[in-house]
């Protein structure tokens, strides 16, 4: 009933808006770009001074505004750029591309205009945060490797899952509940080197935006968040090279125009080189070991004409870890092909084909006896069609459809023992089709009230060939059902409504509320807190229903000091049904009966998030504080007693700041504090066959020590010589500056001398880690 009412409201809004304004209108449309590189700017403001209304550029830098004939002033602005005003006489439809220049010098790079700076107040989004790549570069980084995900982890409502990990929990969700898109292709494992680094090479990234709750209706398939990462298109004006040489890796990015500036390209690479130094090690046994990762990003785009643009982007990255007797590789590959087409000045469309692949392989060398090889692959083929219809200022409609074909091959195992031929065992593959259609719109209802409404209808089909095991009440396999190749044998579907309201009190303050429902059909089989590259994804099935989340959020947004100080206070409540956890001692690796290890129930998460961000000519930084709780209740876990979720950290505080001492020197610091992770500690013990076995009385009933850490960095830029293209800077950073021994895990050991004595031992990962990186561009 509620859903019908919701759909009715949407139809009223969609159908009445054009009727109410059915007068002749003139449309001005175009792209907003960076003057220097020609990169389209995502989310740039286009305001109409005379009416106070406006729009923002979409993910491709496109905007469209329709007004009654007349003379107007369009003001284009973007954070970190000088605003441009364009007087425009709206007498006939026209194209108007605008280029914005970055603020003149480094000191002033964060200067913003009033129109742009209060976008946090005027936008409809709650729980959405956009980080500037330039800001991320100033944050002290682990081993000097600037990292998008590590920056995301400093935002309110986002919690790191384990020290050093690239996994993150958003508003109590599991790491697999975050949809991570790189140029619209799903990234299934964003980690390198066990999570200490993410796969995102900052030099190749243009834009990063995290949606913590009010996920756009165009995206689906995950409960908690959307991390939308966009690669640079490549400099369309002139050749440019950027790079860096650091402790652990080096990187180089080349970009430039092609075909008389109708096209541009970008090629970017990064590789670690710890193994380069292994031959110098005293232990000769490790001289031939391999230990590295690399990333390759490439992008090509071509502008056929004003109505047609083509983009092709790809990413390939791999971790290699091997020696003479065993090895492992894992990595992601994404390919995205896109076609932007303007059907009219008001109707923008984008058609996307994506291919994502995550795979790993591990085992012994091929000629080893005994031999063991294990391969796992996850492949997506997807297609999307997205349309944006610019009805009029303040009224935009978005609609589209998408489909992803998932192929999950969890394990091909080849073993060869001394006297046998190869034995091959294959864990059955899963095939599934995930589809969705959506409609959403932004409407401004009067001067103060704005509404974003959206509905997504998603469907998930399991497809043969498949063997589905049937389980009894004790999760024992009783029989199985075999389905033929191509047979659609199980379907889940559901509506996912989204609604957001913004009541603008004045130019500096607003109140926002949102509601969203999300459904997740694919999940990760992982019950460790840090996760490993070997974790596999598994789909909803006749045995596993899709997870469902309903979230309400509200917040008060207030800017001070002419928008230099942004503040927000948000509250949220989220209920996750069919929430997944695993049986005690679950065997998640190479288990054909994985579904028998899964237990379901519900989880609730609630919290308050405070965010203060200050930006002026010399100082920028933020404070984020989150109080939150996430409690799971599963009938068959912890004897049905509710218990804290693995990432439940009530208090989470981050202080981030950078200060430009001069044009050449910047200093920055982070201080992070959070409650310790929940932990299960023994309350008793018993001895069997010489070993002491711990006894537990409740899951996650204790906490590790509180976590805190200080990171520092100094950036020293070389003198800017106008006659030289070469620009260089030194980045000196210190991770964990006061050498806090933060507990990574706690173990209980049996004394080897006195086997009746036991003691507790904590493991911590990092002490002080200094790093030096030299960055350059020419």
């Amino acid at each position: 009933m509620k859903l019908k009412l919701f759909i009715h409201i949407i139809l009223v809004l969609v159908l009445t808006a054009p009727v109410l304004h059915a007068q002749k209108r003139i449309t001005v449309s175009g792209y907003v770009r960076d003057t220097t590189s020609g990169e389209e700017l995502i989310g740039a403001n286009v305001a109409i001074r005379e009416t106070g209304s406006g729009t923002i550029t979409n993910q491709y830098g496109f905007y469209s505004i329709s007004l009654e004939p007349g003379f107007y002033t369009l003001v284009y602005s973007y954070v970190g750029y000088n605003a441009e005003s364009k007087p425009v006489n709206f007498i006939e439809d026209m194209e108007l591309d605008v280029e914005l220049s970055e603020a003149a010098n480094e000191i002033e790079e964060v200067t913003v205009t009033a129109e742009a700076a209060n976008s946090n107040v005027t936008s409809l989004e709650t729980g959405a945060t956009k980080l500037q790549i330039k800001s991320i570069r100033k944050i002290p980084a682990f081993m000097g490797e600037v990292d998008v995900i590590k920056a995301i982890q400093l935002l309110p409502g986002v919690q790191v899952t384990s020290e050093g990990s690239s996994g993150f929990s958003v508003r109590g969700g599991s790491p697999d509940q975050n949809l991570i898109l790189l140029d619209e292709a799903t990234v299934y494992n964003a980690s390198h080197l066990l999570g200490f680094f993410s796969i995102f090479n900052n030099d190749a990234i243009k834009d990063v935006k995290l949606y913590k709750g009010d996920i756009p209706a165009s995206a689906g398939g995950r409960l908690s968040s959307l991390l939308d990462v966009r690669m640079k298109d490549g400099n369309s004006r002139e050749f440019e090279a950027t790079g860096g040489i650091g402790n652990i890796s080096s990187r180089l990015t080349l970009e430039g125009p092609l075909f008389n500036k109708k096209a541009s390209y970008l090629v970017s690479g990064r590789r670690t080189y710890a193994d380069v130094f292994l031959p110098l090690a005293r232990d000769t046994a490790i001289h031939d070991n391999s230990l590295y990762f690399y990333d390759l990003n490439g992008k090509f785009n071509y502008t056929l004409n004003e109505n047609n643009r083509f983009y092709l982007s790809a990413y390939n990255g791999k971790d290699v870890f091997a020696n003479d007797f065993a090895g492992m590789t894992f990595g992601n590959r994404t390919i995205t092909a896109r076609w932007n087409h303007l059907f009219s000045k008001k109707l923008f469309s984008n058609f996307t084909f994506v291919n994502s692949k995550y795979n790993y392989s591990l085992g012994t060398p091929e000629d080893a006896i005994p031999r063991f090889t294990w391969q796992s692959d996850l492949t997506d083929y997807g297609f999307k069609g997205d349309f944006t219809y610019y009805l009029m200022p303040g009224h935009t409609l978005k609609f589209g459809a998408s489909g992803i074909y998932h192929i999950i091959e969890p394990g091909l195992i080849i073993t060869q023992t001394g006297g046998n031929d190869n034995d091959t065992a294959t864990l059955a593959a899963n095939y599934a089709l995930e589809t969705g259609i959506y409609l959403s719109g932004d409407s401004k209802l009067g001067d103060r009230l704005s509404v974003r409404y959206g509905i997504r209808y998603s469907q998930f089909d399991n497809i043969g060939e498949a063997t589905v095991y049937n389980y009894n009440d004790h999760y024992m396999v009783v029989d199985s059902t075999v389905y033929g190749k191509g047979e659609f044998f199980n379907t889940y579907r559901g509506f996912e409504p989204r609604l957001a309201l913004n009541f603008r009190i004045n130019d500096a303050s607003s109140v926002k509320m949102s509601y969203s429902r999300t459904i997740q059909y694919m999940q990760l089989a992982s019950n460790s807190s840090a996760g490993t590259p070997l974790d596999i994804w598994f789909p909803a099935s006749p045995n596993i229903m899709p997870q469902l989340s309903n979230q309400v959020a509200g917040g008060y947004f207030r800017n001070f000091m002419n928008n230099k100080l942004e503040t927000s206070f948000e509250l949220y409540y989220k209920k996750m049904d069919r929430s997944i956890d695993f049986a005690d001692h679950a065997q998640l690796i190479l288990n054909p009966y994985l579904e028998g290890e899964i237990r379901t129930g519900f989880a609730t998460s609630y919290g308050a998030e405070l965010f203060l961000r200050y930006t002026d000519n010399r100082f920028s930084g933020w404070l984020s504080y989150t109080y939150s709780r996430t409690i799971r209740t599963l009938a068959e876990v912890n004897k049905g007693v509710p218990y804290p979720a693995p990432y439940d950290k009530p208090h989470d505080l981050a202080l981030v700041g950078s200060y430009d001492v001069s044009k050449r020197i910047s200093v920055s610091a982070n201080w992070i504090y959070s409650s310790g992770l929940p932990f299960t500690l023994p309350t008793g013990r018993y001895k069997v066959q010489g070993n002491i076995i711990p006894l537990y009385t409740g899951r996650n009933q204790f906490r590790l020590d509180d976590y805190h850490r200080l990171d520092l960095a100094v950036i020293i830029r070389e003198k800017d010589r106008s006659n030289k293209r070469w620009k260089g800077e030194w980045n000196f950073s210190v991770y964990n500056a006061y050498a806090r021994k933060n507990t990574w895990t706690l173990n209980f050991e049996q004394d080897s001398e006195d086997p009746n004595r036991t003691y507790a031992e904590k493991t911590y990962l990092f002490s002080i880690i200094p790093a030096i990186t030299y960055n350059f561009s020419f």
Partner: protein
Amino acid sequence: MKRSYNKISVLIVLLVISISCTEVVEIELDSTYDRLVVFGKVTTDHERHYVELTTTSDYFYNEEPPPVTGATVRIMAGDSLITLEESAVWPGIYQMSAPYTGVQGVTYQLKISNVDIDNDGESEEYSAIARMPFIEKPDSISLERFITPFFSGTQVTLWSPEAMGTNYYNFQLTRNEEMIHNRLSQYTVQPDDFFTDNYIAGLPVGFLDDDNEDEVVVPGDEVTLVISSITEDYYNFIVEAQNEIFGNNPLFSGPPANVSSNIEGDDAVGVFAAYSIERNSKIVPLPAIPQK
């Protein structure tokens, strides 16, 4: 296969260990009520099989576990009843009065009574069932040197026919008839997932680590592989107990959890096992003389 997977896990953990440190910490833990702890076994070896009864204690109790005395302990072996006698020397140990050889395929039922663990003045009863699995006689074992960048030792490899159906194995090693792997944490257990109803040809089943002086072998030593065909309950008990004994790390470990038990009654822990045993031995050969 599990062993190979473990090698990879070891590799990854080594990477983490290379950048991690440990230190002993003082920590206060809660207490919990006492539970009966049972460890009992019947095997195909001809001996006086026993059942050990103790109770749980606080985690930092740091003493031998409190024995449970005065209990009545019986084992039903098919249709016959065997009453175990409490040892006068080792409190809490209940032994058969005469040597007994377990029979493959027979179901053994353990019954414990006349104990009052919760001290409420009323005695409790506990029971467990285990059906002794079948086992085939192994053909041979081989001993091979195994050297990696991180460790080296002697690998023991098995050639053996396999009993029909699903089987679970526990592999232990003796050196000159002295059991080396006699602690729970030293057992090597493996299901037959990848060689069901097949011939076990050259499966690595044991390892003698050069860095452990108890495991070092020299030419002329006799190494014996003790193969036990165990029940699924006992297999799960060993695997889960080893998970808890070896500790956890955020990469590979799920949340700590209690080890499952096949003992019925009042939250008792431990295991009652019935398993069949075969052995095969090999003399450690002299090193090969290098060819000139």
